[in-house]
């Protein structure tokens, strides 16, 4: 059952990736990204990482994507036509990415063929506990980082000529 869902989400991911990579319209690309992000949340849930699934949906799909959509909106104002995405050096990109994919799959993949995962319990409680005990410092620092990037983004995006 889990594998069936897993392969379903995989299909969604693949479709999203294809859309993202090959569409000419930027909105379609953004929607493709959205599909990928949502499907990933589903896979996280299947892997017993519920908190992360939710965070993924909220933060990525709801935050980052919206941010990107805003970006699309703000950078596409020159003409009334939606911007067309052009590609450059597609061959080279294909070669490099295919090489990377093959390298990983051929050289690194076989190491995990005989690995047997264990069934692990849900992680919400354990994750929260570890966030506030073991990783408190990192947590705090992450907060500071968020604050800083908030300010930075606000400053940079402002229309003042500074």
């Amino acid at each position: 059952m889990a594998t069936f869902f897993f392969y379903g989400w995989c299909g969604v991911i693949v479709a999203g990736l294809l859309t993202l990579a090959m569409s000419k319209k930027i909105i379609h690309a953004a929607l493709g990204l959205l599909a990928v992000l949502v499907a990933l949340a589903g896979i996280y849930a299947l892997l017993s990482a519920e908190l992360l699934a939710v965070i993924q949906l909220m933060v990525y799909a709801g935050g980052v994507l919206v941010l990107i959509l805003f970006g699309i909106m703000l950078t596409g104002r020159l003409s009334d036509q939606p911007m067309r995405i052009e590609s450059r050096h597609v061959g080279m990109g294909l070669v490099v990415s295919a090489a990377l994919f093959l390298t990983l799959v051929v050289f690194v993949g076989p190491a995990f063929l005989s690995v047997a995962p264990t069934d692990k319990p849900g992680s919400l409680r354990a994750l929260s506990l570890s966030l506030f005990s073991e990783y408190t410092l990192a947590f705090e620092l992450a907060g500071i980082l968020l604050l800083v990037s908030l300010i930075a983004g606000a400053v940079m995006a402002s229309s003042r000529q500074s």
Partner: protein
Amino acid sequence: MNVATTGWNVWVPLALALPLVSFVIRYLIGHRYGWVVPLLATAFLLAGWVCATVLLVGHSHGTSTFSLPWFSMGADVISVGWQLSPRSVTMLWAVYTISLLVHIYSIGYMAGEAGTARYFAWLGFFTFAMGGLVVSSNLLVTFCCWELVGLSSYRLIGHWRERPAASAAATQAFLVNRVGDLGFLVALMFLWSQAGTWEISALVSMPHSDELKTAVGLCLLLAVAGKSAQFPLLHWLPDAMAGPTPVSALIHAATMVAAGVYLFVQLHFLFSADALAVAAVVGLVTVFVGGWGALTQFDLKKILAYSTISQLGLMVAGVALASPEAGFTHLLAHAFFKAGLFLTAGALIHAVSHHGRAPQQDIRHLSGLWSSHRAVVICFMVCAASLAGVPFTSGFLSKEVLLSQVGNHPVYFGLMAASSLLTSLYCARLVMYLLAPRPAGLVTHPIPPIMVLPVFVLSLGSLFIGLSRSPFSLQSGWPVFATETLAPWVAFVSTGLLILGVGLAWRLYRHRPEQGPSESWIPHTWLDSVQKHLVLTPALRLSKATDQVDQRWLDGILHAASYGYVAFSFVIGWVDRVFVDGLVSMVTTVAQGGGKLFRALVNGKIQSYLTWGMLALLSFMVWMLYQLAHR
């Protein structure tokens, strides 16, 4: 016999050096004081004459040699030194005496002329060279002095530089002498290779093969012929009369031309019988050629020149046929009376010539001086009498010695007798022309006494006392003469020939004809052209041919070499440009290309940066994983 005479050895270099000093003095005295040079030269020569007299008086017997090593060739040492024998001492004294008298005469003769410093300098140098030639004990040194004598003769004949005839005559004299010097050199080579030494004293004591003697003899004969004007090398002597008369007196009558005969006398032992026969023939031919020349000339100095040639031939024939002592006797006598004749002739010419015009040397116009210059004319006649062989003169004595020593051979005796007839003929002719009545309107100058004194001394020497105390034999004469008896019938024959000659001259020349036999009979004109065709033209052609070779071939080779070099340098330049510079520019091109290649990576496009970065990372990953997998 060797006499221990170390004390005398200082006089020889002193005697030789004093005239040399007078040569050097000329270069030290400036132009302003040029008038002192003649007096100074004469003074030095007087001192030298005193040394020579000391040697003559003190060293009249025996032989001594002195030598210093000069240079060495390997194991052989050539030394320079002198040999004092009665003969060399006497000859040295004769040379110095005549040179001194010529110096004194020249003070008057060359007075007022430009270039007297030069003249006296070379007179001194000549005396030094001649003295060296006479006393030298090594044939190499003799040869050096021989050449130096020739050099000073060249300078003195050509003293009047502004006259082209003088320069031409000087050159001719020098060149003809060179032909003779060739003979001397070859003889030296023969002697070195066969006998191994050039020392006269050593050569005397060595036995020599007949072939060597013939070879050396013929070569030396060539040298003698060149220097002493034997046939066919005699035509330079009449032309040398273009020089000043005192020069003719010193060099071409008494000393330089006598050097050849002197050499003949010294080295008589090196001549084989065949060489002596050839020498006799040459000498006899010269006698008649010279005598005939004297008969046909009207120039006073040329007559005396031909007479000198004739007498030199007689000397050579005498040494060859009679004995060296006989020839030497005649050499001494001839020195005095010929010098006297020349100096007198110079004085007479000086009396008749006018300043600014060419000197009057034609005997047809020198007549009538008996009344105005009696003393000089008498001296002239005394010397001429000595030449002709009149009794009571030295010439008579020397001719008697010659004739008596060949008395055994009728042919030779006949030829010599004929020569003495010829001599008396031309002497009488000369005197007759001179004693002709004075033409009207002849203006003469007085002769300065300084010129008369040497003439007087020489004419005294031409009398019998010049040779011996008795007018009829040499037995009480100078120690150099071999004491031998003279056959009295010879005296009668020679006196008879003398009278015959005078009578013949009286008949032929009583009316003093203005024309003589044509000059084409004189051999020296065609001798000149023979030499020109034999020697000069081929030499010129050879030199032209070598010049052609040099220009076309040698220069051509040089040009080709230089062209080749230039072409080679072009090739080198091409190689340098193409290869060496090409190498350098290839390096730069590679560097530039590499730079351009890497610069193209920095194109400001982040996606291309990312692409290359990913490729690098990828390759690193692949390699790492490969290593990990195969460890």
